[in-house]
C-alpha cells in the first residue's frame, strides 16, 4: 500500500510567499510608521470630505448592425458601463480604493443569444451578483516616496485599457477591439501589487494575483472569459505573476511592455484537467499625445499550454456552467493602432471645445495557432477598420460616433459593419 502524502509543498510555498509579502514587508513599514495614523473620529466633516475622492463615469451607446453572417442581428442600445469610484486617503501613507461597476445598467441574469460562436443557442450569462460588481476594492500603502503596495481586488497592470479605461480616455464607443476581444474587460483580480517609479522616467508594476480559470476560454475570445466571475468565491489554487514597465518621456508620452503568466488548470470549477495549462501573455504599447494629434498602439501575443487537452476537457463541461466549450487556440496574436487628430487645435483660437477625428486599425487572430487535432478556424482572424468623431462640449462630457468595418477570415459573408454612437460622462 502506498501512502499518499498531502501536497503540502506547493501550497506552503504559495501561502508563505503571500504572507511574507503581505505581513512582512508591509508590516515592517506599518510598525515604522505608527505615528502616521490619525483616528477618524477626531476629524471634522470638511477634513473627511477632503480625504474622500469621488468619481462617477458611464457610457450609453446605440449600435446599428449590418452583419453578413448574422443578417437578423437587431440594433441595440447598451448602457455599457456605469462606475462609481470612491477613494479614501486614510492617512498619509494608507489609501483605500474602490470601484463599483454597473454593467449594462442592471442586476440579474442576462440571456444571451450568440449565433456566431454556437450558431443559434440561447445562453444565460450569469455574472456573480448579477451585473453589479466590485471591480476594485483594495488598500494601498505607500512605503517609500515613489513606491506603493496595494492588496485586495486590484486592477491588473496589463495592456492599454487598464490605464485608459474611462470613456473620456478612449475615443471609440468601447476600448480597442483587440483588448476588448481577447482580454477580460475591466480586468481586475485578487492579489498584491507593487508599483512605483524609478530613475527619472521609469514606472513599474509587479504583482501576484489569482490566476484565470481555463474552463471559460473559447475560440472567439481566447482567455477573456477565464476571469473568474461565475462563482461566489474566487479560486486561488493557481497564482499568476504580472509585470509592467513603462518609459514615460513626459505625461501622456510613453512606451512600455507588460507580461502575464499563470496556470489556468487548478482554478477550474472541478479538477477535470490533468495537465498544466499555463497562460502567457506579452504586450508592447505606445501612447503619444501632442497638441494636435495622438497615436496609441499595442501589439499583443498570447500562448496557452496544452490547449488541445484543455479544449477537450472544456467540451465535457456541464451545460449548466454556461461556458462556450469551443476549441481554444494555442496562440493568439494581434495589433492595434489608433491615430487621432484635433482639427480645431490647428487654428489655435478655435480650441475652446475639443473635437477629435480618429481612425484605428485592429488585426487579431484568436486561432493564430492551434494544437493537435483542433481545427484552425479562419473565422477567428479579424481585420477591423474604425473611423469616428468625438466631441467634448465640456471636459466631463463627450459625444461619440463611429463606423466600424470588420472583416472575418472566411471567403463569404465575411463583413460585419457596425455604426455606433453614444455619449459618456465622467464626474470626478
Amino acid at each position, binding site marked *: 500500500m502506498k501512502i499518499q502524502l498531502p501536497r503540502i509543498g506547493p501550497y506552503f510555498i504559495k501561502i508563505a510567499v503571500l504572507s511574507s509579502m503581505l505581513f512582512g514587508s508591509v508590516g515592517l513599514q506599518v510598525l515604522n510608521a505608527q505615528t502616521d495614523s490619525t483616528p477618524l473620529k477626531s476629524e471634522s466633516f470638511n477634513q473627511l470630505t477632503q480625504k474622500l475622492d469621488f468619481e462617477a463615469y458611464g457610457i450609453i451607446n446605440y449600435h446599428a448592425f449590418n452583419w453578413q453572417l448574422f443578417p437578423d442581428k437587431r440594433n441595440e442600445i447598451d448602457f455599457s458601463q456605469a462606475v462609481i469610484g470612491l477613494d479614501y486617503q486614510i492617512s498619509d501613507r494608507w489609501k483605500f480604493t474602490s470601484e463599483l461597476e454597473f454593467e449594462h445598467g442592471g442586476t440579474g441574469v442576462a440571456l444571451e443569444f450568440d449565433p456566431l460562436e*454556437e450558431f443559434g443557442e440561447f445562453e444565460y450569462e450569469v455574472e456573480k451578483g448579477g451585473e453589479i460588481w466590485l471591480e476594485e476594492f483594495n488598500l494601498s500603502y505607500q512605503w517609500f516616496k515613489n513606491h506603493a503596495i496595494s492588496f485586495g481586488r486590484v486592477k491588473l497592470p496589463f495592456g492599454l485599457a487598464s490605464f485608459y479605461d474611462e470613456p473620456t480616455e478612449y475615443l471609440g464607443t468601447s476600448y480597442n477591439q483587440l483588448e476588448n476581444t481577447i482580454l477580460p474587460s475591466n480586468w481586475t483580480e485578487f492579489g498584491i501589487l507593487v508599483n512605483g517609479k524609478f530613475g527619472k522616467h521609469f514606472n513599474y508594476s509587479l504583482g501576484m494575483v489569482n490566476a484565470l480559470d481555463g474552463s471559460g476560454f473559447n475560440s472567439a475570445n481566447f482567455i477573456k472569459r477565464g476571469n473568474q466571475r461565475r462563482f461566489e468565491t474566487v479560486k486561488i489554487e493557481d497564482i499568476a505573476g504580472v509585470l509592467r514597465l513603462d518609459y514615460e518621456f513626459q505625461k501622456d508620452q510613453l512606451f512600455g511592455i507588460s507580461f502575464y503568466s499563470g496556470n489556468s488548470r487548478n482554478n477550474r470549477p472541478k479538477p477535470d484537467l490533468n495537465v498544466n495549462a499555463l497562460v502567457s501573455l506579452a504586450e508592447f504599447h505606445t501612447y503619444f499625445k501632442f497638441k494636435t494629434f495622438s497615436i496609441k498602439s499595442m501589439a499583443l501575443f498570447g500562448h496557452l499550454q496544452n490547449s488541445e487537452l484543455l479544449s477537450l476537457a472544456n467540451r465535457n*463541461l456541464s451545460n449548466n456552467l454556461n461556458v462556450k466549450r469551443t*476549441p481554444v487556440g494555442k496562440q493568439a496574436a494581434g495589433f492595434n493602432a489608433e491615430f487621432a487628430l484635433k482639427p480645431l487645435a490647428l487654428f489655435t483660437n478655435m480650441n475652446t471645445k475639443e473635437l477629435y477625428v480618429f481612425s484605428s486599425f485592429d488585426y487579431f487572430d484568436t486561432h493564430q495557432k492551434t494544437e493537435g*487535432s483542433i481545427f484552425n478556424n479562419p473565422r477567428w482572424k479579424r481585420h477591423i477598420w474604425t473611423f469616428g468623431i468625438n466631441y467634448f462640449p465640456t471636459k466631463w462630457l463627450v459625444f461619440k460616433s463611429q463606423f466600424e468595418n470588420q472583416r472575418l477570415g472566411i471567403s463569404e459573408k465575411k463583413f460585419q459593419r457596425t455604426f455606433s454612437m453614444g455619449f459618456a460622462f465622467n464626474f470626478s
Partner: protein
Amino acid sequence: MITTQLKYFLSFGIFFSIFSCSDEPVNPQSNYSEILKTETNQVIILTYYDLNEKAGLLSVRCDEFSSNKTQAHLDLMRQLWRDARKPWEQSEGFLFGPVDIQGIDPSIDSWPVNVIDLDAVLASSDPLTKEYLDGLEGTLKGFHTLEYLLFGIDGNKSVQEFTDRQIEYLKACAQSLKGETNKLHTAWISGPSPYGTILKTAGEPSNQVYLSQKSALQELLDGIITIADEVGNGKINDPFVTNNITLEESRFSANSKQDFADNIRSIQNIYFGSTDGNYNLNSLSGLIKTKDAALDSKIINQIQEAITAIINIPGTFTEAISANRAAVQNAQDQVRQLQLILESELKPLFDKL
C-alpha cells in the same frame, strides 16, 4: 418532591406527545421506488440503448459508403439516419443527467448546421478522423451535420455530388455520433456511479443528487414540461410565425413532423412508463390515476390529440408553414394545451406529494 413529580409528569407528557406524532399511518403511496425503477429501466435506459444501437448501424453503413457509392446505399443511410433520430427525439423528454451534465447534447443535436465553418473544414487539409471531429464544435457534427451531408440543402443531393472529403467527413461524423451515444448509454448503466442507479435510489441517504424521491419525480415532470414548451413555442413556433423555413430544424430530411411527434411520444413514454405505448402500473400515469383519475385521462387524451394533430399536418412541415397554416396552428394549439395541463394541473398535484 412536588417539583420532582412535576418533572416526571412533564417528561412523560413530552415522551407521549413525541410518540403520538410519529404514530400517524405511513402513506403506502409515498414510496415511489418502483416508479423510478420503471422509468429508468423501461424508458430512459431502453431509449438510450436503442439510440446507441441505431447510431452504430448508421456508422457502419457510412464506413462502407466510399466503397459502395450507389443511390441505394445513400437511401439506406438516409433511412438509418431517420431510424436513429427517432430514439433521440424520444429522449428529449428527459434531457437531464449525463446528457446535460457531461455536455453531450450539443455534440449530438446542435442546430443550425454551421455551414460556413463546415466548408472551411472541408477546404482544409486536416485529416478527418473521429478524434478530429470529437474536437470540433457541436454545430459541426451530430445529427444535423450528418443530415446536411446526407440530404443536401434541398433534400435531393445525389450520389455524384459527394466529394471525397465529404465522404471522409461523413464517416468521421457518424463515428463521432456513435461515440457520443455510447458515452451516454454507458453513463446510465455502468461506471462507479451509473446515473440509472442514482435516479433509482433517489431519497436514500447515500444519494447526493436526489435527496428525496419526490425531487426525482419532479425532475421527470420538469423534463416533459420542458419538451412540450420547446415543441410548441420553439420548434413549431419559430418557423411558423416568421414564415421562415430556415428556422425549421430537420428541414433537409423533411423529418420535422416525425421529430415533433416523437418529442410528444417522449412525454407519453415517461407518462406511461413504457416505450411501446402501453400503460405501466408503476408509472406517472399509475400514480396520478390513484390521486385524480379524471386528470390522468385528460393527460392521456391530450398527448394523443397533440400527436394526431402533428401527424395530420398535410405534406411536409416546410410546405405546411405557408400552404396549410390552419393545420400547423392546430398542432401548435394542441401541444400548448398539453403543456398547459402539465404545468397548471399536474405540477400542483406533484407539489402536494
